[in-house]
């Protein structure tokens, strides 16, 4: 479509220009379809009142083709889109640079610009065909993998199934490692968790359990009880290293936890309880009570479900937990914004650098990034591999 339009423009290009918005370069979590729809709607006023057309491309980029529209009328709209994606590094303007990463402008009445833009449009169009095929394939695969969204109706059935399901063999362990100054590692604890992918396979292969954060959270309340029952069969006197488990506040305050507590006996210092921030926010009073009770009995409390980004919007120190876990994401890989890194370093320092754990660490890069902001406790695939290496090294 865009190419067809350009062909027509070529015969009389006077007054035409194009703005290419590189939204395909946004971070993945900002490239969601409903975000892009809303961004495209920002142009509606401009399109209604001027000779302008917007081409939303299949790779998420957008091209605006205008004829005789004052640049001053286009600027505010581009800025509006920029503001929408304010949190994304793509939209930060390099001071002193001529062009920003978000938009490129082409004066189509100038033949060099026209040629350059035509070239780009051709590339985009060829990419689009390829992508269409791929997307179709991906969409089908995703639907098969994720299945129907979790709704109240299938939730009831799944919940029922879960209550009777064996989960012991689905419990996985992941190690949280404290990295010393000399590069040596000390095991802080082993997180015991149920692999959701495997659980899904067993009890609900055709349902996307994550479609609603709230219904998923409901399901975890049942899951908690199953895990507690399974773990209560352990002999905690024999337990060599500390373990951690994820629990809802409602579970911690329930009879099931009392039973578990009896099984733990005098070994409460070997158990870390992880509580999700969503759960905490929805009932601060219960959290405070649960935290105090757990800490008094000798358990350690960990606040889970945070990201480096969320740390910039609230101060977890007030939660007075023993640990705070933040999840690393690939969006921080390209994070070379010094001010953000400095800010995070400060947040880590006020939270207590001995209490912050960087989780979902799957590359060495993530560890370096973590060390850079003052974190020395890590968890994730990369750490598991590291622990394996250390363990096999010790054996030799």
């Amino acid at each position, binding site marked *: 479509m865009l190419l067809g339009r350009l062909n027509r423009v070529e015969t009389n290009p006077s007054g035409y220009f194009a703005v290419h918005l590189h939204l395909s370069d946004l971070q993945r979590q900002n490239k969601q379809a409903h975000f892009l729809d*809303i961004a495209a709607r920002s142009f509606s006023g401009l399109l209604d009142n001027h000779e302008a057309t917007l081409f939303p491309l299949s790779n998420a980029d957008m091209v605006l083709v205008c004829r005789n529209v004052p640049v001053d009328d286009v600027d505010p709209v581009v800025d509006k889109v920029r503001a929408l994606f304010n949190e994304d590094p793509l939209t930060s303007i390099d001071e002193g640079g001529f062009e920003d990463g978000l938009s490129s402008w082409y004066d189509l009445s100038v033949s060099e610009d026209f040629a350059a833009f035509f070239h780009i449009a051709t590339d985009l169009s060829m990419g689009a065909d390829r992508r269409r095929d791929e997307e179709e394939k991906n969409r089908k695969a995703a639907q098969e993998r994720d299945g129907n969204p979790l709704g109240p109706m299938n939730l009831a059935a799944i919940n029922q199934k879960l209550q009777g399901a064996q989960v012991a063999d689905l419990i996985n362990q992941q190690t949280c490692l404290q990295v010393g100054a000399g590069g040596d590692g000390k095991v802080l604890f082993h997180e015991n968790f149920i692999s959701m992918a495997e659980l899904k396979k067993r009890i609900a292969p055709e349902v996307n359990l994550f479609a609603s954060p709230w219904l998923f*959270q409901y399901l975890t309340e049942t899951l908690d009880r199953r895990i507690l029952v399974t773990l209560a069969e352990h002999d905690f006197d024999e337990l060599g290293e500390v373990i951690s488990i994820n629990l809802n506040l409602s579970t911690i305050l329930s009879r099931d936890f009392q039973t578990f507590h009896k099984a733990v006996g005098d070994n409460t210092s070997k158990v870390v309880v992880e509580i999700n921030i969503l759960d905490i926010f929805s009932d601060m009073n219960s959290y405070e009570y649960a935290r105090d009770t757990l800490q008094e009995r000798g358990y350690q409390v960990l606040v889970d479900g945070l990201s480096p980004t969320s740390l910039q919007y609230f101060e977890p120190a007030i939660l007075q937990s023993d640990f705070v876990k933040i999840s690393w994401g690939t969006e921080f890989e390209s994070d070379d914004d010094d001010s953000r890194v400095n800010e995070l370093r400060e947040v880590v320092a006020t939270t207590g650098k001995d209490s912050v754990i960087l989780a979902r660490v799957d590359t060495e890069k993530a560890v370096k990034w973590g060390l850079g902001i003052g974190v020395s406790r890590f968890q994730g695939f990369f750490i598991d591999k590291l622990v394996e290496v250390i363990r096999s090294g010790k054996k030799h």
Partner: protein
Amino acid sequence: MANVSDTAKRLPSQENLLLDYVHRLEKRRKGRRAVHIHLSALRPFNRRDQHIRAAASNFEPLIKDLKGQMFALKNADLFFVFKDEANPHVETILQKVRFLFSDDPLILEEDKIDQDFATWYDCEKDFDAILHLVQGMDQAEKKRQTTVRSRMDARAALKVKQEQGEPLTPEVLERVITALVRADLSNLVRRQYICAVDEKMVPEEEFSELFISIKDLRETMLPNVNLLANRWLFQHLTETLDKRMLSMLTKTDSISISGQISFNINVAILLSPEFQAFDDNIAAGRRGSMTIELQKEDIFSDLSSYMFAREFVQDKGFKICIDGLSAETLRMINTEKLGVDMIKLIWDPDLVDAGDEIQDNLRDIVRQRGDKHLILCRCDDRQAIDFGHSVGIGLFQGRFIESLIAEDGRRRELMRLKRRIERS
């Protein structure tokens, strides 16, 4: 350990014993001093049981000599009452205790932070202050124990069930949602005013919140179900209610929803086609008179969606209000960075005794962002308004405000009548 805490539950709390002791002290306060050691302000990893025990054990010799009495409080604080003659000894012990925690910010940054490590009292001169403090502690502990009981007790759960109906289950939720899509909810929409209140308790309306009454919804649709029993299922239900509210707001651009209004909504709904349709259908000028209320847990469940949605709706002219904060969550969350236009703080009588740090935080927010930024909501009595005024809060909402409005209406009606009588 389980046994220890079980017995502890049945015994009177240390707070209670301390209050009792202070009452008896009233007649013998002369020649006695007290020191309150704020171990609760230590970092959590420094105030484990063993740390507190170690700190308290330093006082053992004095206690054996009957020179003083120790109270180890629930929040980890120590309260030691002793005879004048032991003062030098107590000072030395306190130095020792400080040394135990010398790596904690409470000690390291003592000059920088407002919190002292210890507060000293003269029982004769400061008796009232001590009594007030100890009463407060006792109250807090009692309240804590009641909440504990109400949570843990199967009997309490049964009582709730009998009074409020069967807890909401996924099956029932499904039925409710299906029914909601077809039902006419317009008669369930309620309005509560957010008002400025002057010293004479005369309210002035600023805007009003529209909401679907959950109580009435329950009574009309499911008299035997407790919709609020599970917060996650309820939260899911609110997404359906949001959509119904939006469609009602779109259809009836009539008197009933005129004026400055606010309504609650989920972030996910702000980004949905339903909100787009709503936005397309309201007059551009209306947006500036509408405030969108968002829950904190919803915001933090997906921050990038929130940031995007906020930018989008604020640019359209809507205002954003973060709802349901307590003084504590308000201190924790950086509302300025979240870019909200208003904050709703839930009234709690405990705010009066919450301490300087929390009250100063409220004053700071009012000073920096104006007295129309903070709304004290769920105000049930006059105490709420008085507290709000004391920290500079300018806007209030709740049952007490509704009664003030009704009263104000009656007063105006009377004045009108009086004038009519005078004229005739």
